[in-house]
Structure formats: C-alpha cells, structure tokens
C-alpha cells in the first residue's frame, strides 16, 4: 500500500512539474538570464567563414559572431556563449527540445520548416544560393552538363531536395552520394567517389579555398536555388524573436551610420544624429523595451563591429573565403540588407 501511494504521489508530482515546465518554456530570455549563458547550436566546425573551430578550441565565423553579439546584448559579455556543435540531422530536434536557445548553423529558411515545424527565422544574415563544386578536369562548364553524374550532398538538408528538384526539372539523371558532414562530402569529392559536391555557393567557395589542390577545382556559375540563411529560434517566443532580429539590425544600422568597432565609444558619447543616439542608448529607453540594458547595441558593435566589418573579416575578399558581397550589401548600395528605423 505504501509503495502504491508513493508511485501515485510521484506521478502526481511529475505531472505538476511538467505542467509548470511547459508554461515557462516560452521565455527564452528569462532562461538565458538565469543560466548566465546563451546556448548556440553551430556547425561541427568546418563551415569556413560561418562557424569554424580552430586547434586551440576557439570558434570563429559570422554565425559565431552573431552568437557573441547576442550574448553581449543580453548578458553584457560576449564570452557568455556555449557553442553546441550539431550535425544538421540533429539540429532542429535540438532546438525544438530546448537543448539550445537558437541555431546559427547555416540553416535555410523555407516555407515548410517555417509553417510545419514551428521554427522561426527572425532575419536573414546571408543571402546564398546553391551551386556545384567540380574538378576542372571534368571539363564541365555548366550544371546542365552533369547528366548521369554522381553528386555528393548532405543528408536531410534543403540542398538534397533542391538537387532533386533541379535534376527533375531539367530532365537529367544523377546518383546522390549522401554524407552527414561537409568533411565527408569533401573527402568523397577528393577521392572521386562523386563528380560534384552540391551546397551553398558561399560554403563551396570556402571549402574550395581550403582544399590542398584548390586550383584543380571550380565552383560552377549556376545557382540552382535561393538559400536565405539566418538564425533559427522556436516559434513560441515573440520577445526573444525581437531581440534576435534587432541584434542583427544593430549590425546593419551601424554600417549605415558608419559606426564601427573602433569608433563606437566615441559615437555613443558625441554623435549628434538622434537615431544614432537612440541606437547606442544615449537617449530614450529603447533597451528596456526589449528587456535589455540601454546600451545593448553599443555593446554589440563594440564586440563584433558592424555588418560590413563582420562580413569582411569572415567571408570578404580579404578573408580565406574570398567572396564579394553581392546580394549581402546594404540596400542603399544595391544589396538586400535593410533594417527598419530605430524609432
């Protein structure tokens, strides 16, 4: 009898505690502040320019910078980030089960992920497109010539589906060689297991640069899909959504206003532009509206710099990846980056 009542009490207790846990689930901001750490799902460390892990255990890349910017905004220190390397296969499940606060691992925003999986992309930080990396010796000039080829691709990604769509649309045949990571795909390509490796072109350019015989490979000019990449969060948290979105907008606004990592302190103290004053927290209470300190954006910029600086450092022509900005340029310079006004 005693055992029975203990079990019943345990069940009742579990029911109560789960109920309260699911009610608190919505508040990612609160959870982060309590934990004192942003948990950020990133790639396994080989996505050059986006998230890489060096031999000293340091993370670098545009997506890593985004996680640091978020930590600077919420916790006032860019170091309070826990990077969780995730294979793509497990990434969404890790997010929906609350193992991480957000994903910053080059996940493409698509309709079905947005609508069906209850995920949310507050912003797009890189506009990419899918292409092919091939050996020059094949003599292929366009993706349309890849009829009958074996093509390396990562499993469970939108790339896998785009590839299928592209070959179906053009009435071409191919054999998918599916691997789980960028490293495996590259190893397969180098060994000749496949003729081409299909992925986002930004990533391919980075991978090509890192190959031992980079000159023997070429990224084909064809772009077969739109790949908007952005941070991913759970859909049930509008407050956290705003923080993620505005952290990114702070990058863009800073570039628009010419605020850099170097001059942000000076701008915060001396700028006469009212919008800059609002952004950097000199006037108004814009931080409090998001549940943050008033100088959150100033800290973001002091940590990572503005979008232009971040792009140049990680992906730009001065970096290993060597990509021009293309669509990832400010709207005022013919690109797609646009931030709402700070008002």
């Amino acid at each position, binding site marked *: 009898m005693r055992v029975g009542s203990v079990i019943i009490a345990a069940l009742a207790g579990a029911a109560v505690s789960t109920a309260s846990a699911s009610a608190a689930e919505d508040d990612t901001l609160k959870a982060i502040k309590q934990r004192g750490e942003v948990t950020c799902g990133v790639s396994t460390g080989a996505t050059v320019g986006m998230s890489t892990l060096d031999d000293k255990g340091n993370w670098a890349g545009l997506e890593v910078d985004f996680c640091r910017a978020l930590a600077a905004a919420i916790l006032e220190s860019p170091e309070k980030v826990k990077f969780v390397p995730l294979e793509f296969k497990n990434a969404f499940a890790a997010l929906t089960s609350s193992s991480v606060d957000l994903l910053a691992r080059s996940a493409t925003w698509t309709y079905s992920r947005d609508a069906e999986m*209850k995920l949310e992309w507050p912003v797009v930080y890189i506009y990419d497109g899918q292409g092919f990396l091939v050996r020059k010796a094949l003599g292929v000039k366009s993706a349309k010539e890849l009829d009958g080829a074996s093509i390396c691709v990562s499993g469970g990604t939108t790339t896998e589906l785009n590839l299928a769509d592209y070959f179906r649309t053009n009435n071409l045949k191919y054999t998918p060689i599916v691997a789980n990571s960028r490293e495996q795909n590259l190893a397969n390509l180098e060994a000749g297991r496949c003729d081409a490796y299909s992925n986002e072109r930004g990533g391919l350019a980075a991978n090509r640069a890192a190959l031992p015989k980079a000159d023997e490979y070429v990224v084909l000019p064809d772009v077969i899909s739109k790949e908007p990449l952005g941070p991913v969060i759970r859909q049930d948290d509008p407050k956290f959504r705003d923080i993620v979105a505005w952290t990114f907008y702070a990058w863009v606004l800073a570039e628009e206003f010419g605020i850099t990592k170097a001059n942000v302190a000076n701008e915060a103290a001396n700028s006469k532009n009212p919008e800059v004053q609002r952004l950097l927290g000199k006037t108004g209470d814009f931080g409090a509206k998001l549940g943050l300190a008033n100088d959150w954006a100033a800290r973001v910029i002091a940590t990572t710099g503005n979008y232009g600086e971040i792009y140049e450092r990680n992906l730009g022509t001065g970096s290993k990846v060597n990509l021009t900005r293309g669509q990832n340029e400010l709207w005022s310079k013919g690109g797609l980056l646009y931030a709402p006004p700070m008002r």
Partner: protein
Amino acid sequence: MSLAETLESRVDASSEGRTGRPRISPRLRRNLGSIFWQGCTLIAVVALLAFLGHNIALNLKARGLASGFDFLSKEAGFAIGFSLIPFTETDTYGRAFVVGLLNTIFVAFVSMILATVLGTIIGVARVSKHPPTAAAALVYIEALRNIPLLLQVLFWQQLLINGLPSVRQSLNLGGWVFLNNRGLVLPDISAGALPVPPSLMAAIMAATLIGLIVTALRRAEPSRRRRAAFWGLGAVLALEILLATLTVDWSRPVLTGFNFRNGVVLIPEFVALVVALTIYNAAFIAEIVRAGIESVNKGQREAAAALGLPPRLTMRLIVLPQAMRVVIPPLANQYSHLLKASSLATVIGYPDLVNVFLGTTLNQTGRAIEIVTMTMAVYLVLSALVAGFTSWFNARVALVER
C-alpha cells in the same frame, strides 16, 4: 500492514468464520500475494506510459507541432543512391521507409551469412592441432574483436574509396564486370527476354532452395533417403540457375559520361559495411564455435577414433552436431548485435533505415516521435524474428536424448 496482508487476513477471517472448511493453503496464499504485487506493477507501468503519452500529445499541441502518420503518403522529393526497389523523387516517404528497411535487411542478411561461414572456419582453425593455424586464428580473433566496429567501418570505406581506381580507370574484369571506387558494376537483366517473368523465376528458385534446406534439416528421415532428396533438389536448383543465366538477356555495362550505364552497382559503402560487419562478428562467432567444440566430451572423439573414423569425419559427424547445442543460443545474440550494428551505415552514408528514415525523412518532415517509434519498432521486430528463427533452428538440430 500491506494491502496484501490485509486481504489475506480478511480471507483467513472469513474462511474461519464458516464452519470447519479447510483454510487457504499457504501456497495459494503466497500466490495471491505475488499476483497482487504483479498487478500493482503492471498498473504502475501502464499508468506511467499513459502519462508520458498524454504529456507528449499535450506538449506537441502546445508547441503547435504537427503529428500523425499522414506524412507517409506524401511525396518525398529526394532521391536515394542505392535501392533494391525502384525509387524516384516523386515516390512517398512511406516508400522511402521501405527502401531503407530493405537496405537494412539486405546488408544485415548478407553479413550474417558471411560472418557465420567465416566465423565457423576460424573457430575450427582455432582448435586445430596444427600450431600455425591455431595461432593465426588466435591473432585474427584477438586483433579484430578488440578494434571498435565503428573504426573498422570507416577504415574499409576509406580503403575502398581511396584504394580503388577512379571510374575512368576502372578495372575491367572480363568485359562484363567493372571495379572502381564507385563500386562493383555488374551486368543487369534487361527485361523481356525471359520465357517467364523474373519474379516468377526467382520465386521458383527460392522455393527449391527452401525445399533443399528443409530436407537437410529433416533428421527423422533415414539418412540415405535424405541425402538422395538433397542432391536431387540441388541438381534441380543448379539447372534452374543455369537456365535463368542462359535465357536472361544480360545488358553489358558501358562507361558513358560520368558513370557506367546498363549495369547494377554494388556501392562501396555497402561493401565496406558488409566487410566490417563480417570480419568483426566472425571473430566473436569463432569464439562461440570454439567454445562449442570444446564443450564436446573428449570421450566422444576417442570413441570415434576407436571406431576408425578419420578426424575430418569425426569433426563433421560427431563433434559439430553436438557442439551446435552450445553454439546456437549465443549465436542468436551475435546476430541480434549484428543487425543493430548495421545502423553504423549512417556514418558512411549507406542508405539504410537509420540514414534514409531517421535521418533525411525526419529532418524533412519533423515528425520525430512517429519516426523514432517506427524505427525502434522495426529493429525490435527484426531482432525478434532473428531470435525466433534461431530458436526454431535450435529445436530442429537439438540432440534427441534417448
């Protein structure tokens, strides 16, 4: 006082109250107690499961996640590189599940047969009177069973992909078969040339093969008649295979563009997985076989020798049949391990169930609970089938005590 005791004392009281009837026997009383506790446990387990299920349903609803199995009939939209049945992008997730399932069964089945054959040979070699043979078997067993299977799988994959020539420099094996680092290219059957459909032909051959195995296992029949039936059926099977080979119109693989066309390709990921599973499990099976052989009483061999049986016949007729009793139960465990270990396919990209269904399909549909449950159910059912078959086989070959 527990409820059981209360119950029992009440039963006691009531039986005492009635005139002179014998009291409940102590044995029945013990049983009542254990039935009560088993009932409690059952209720607790069911309640816990119901609670978890209810909670999952609530949480899914709260997060607004879609659930249900309707996704199985939706278009998959991805291609699969290696499949036993035709599969294209327009087929459903349900069919992708079947493709993955068949690929898992295929790789596990082939590995089981090869591991058993290799393991038996090495196990017999291990107890050989010839020291170099025994030593070689020992080295094989100790080396291979102590290297993690995952490393072996990766090793064979890397070896095949980097060691074999590229597709343009394929090894030409007689003009009909080609070997390169994209696999072993075999001639395909082009339909239409057969007098009977290939599926019927395959069914006839399978029926003959099953007949052959059943005959071999019918120990009740006199051995002469059994042997005659065995060789007779064997001849029929050989004839069927010959007929099929000759009448089928084989299409010759040709290198066109990037790959070979008109052929069937056994991909290197499949071969790597089969080789790794085979040699790893063969090491364990060898030890099982050795234990079985050593369990047979020395007197049995001596008796056989006294009757003038040569060593080879002693092994085949006296030792191995008796060793079977000891060998088969642990062998069932080994098969079950092999089946589950075949899911290592996912690290080298062989499209097994875990890769195609638990990987790609899960990520495209987001139906984690349904897909994980289905995948677990598959491994459970397959393991149960293997165990069921092995115990049936065990019953067939068990020594009849006289």
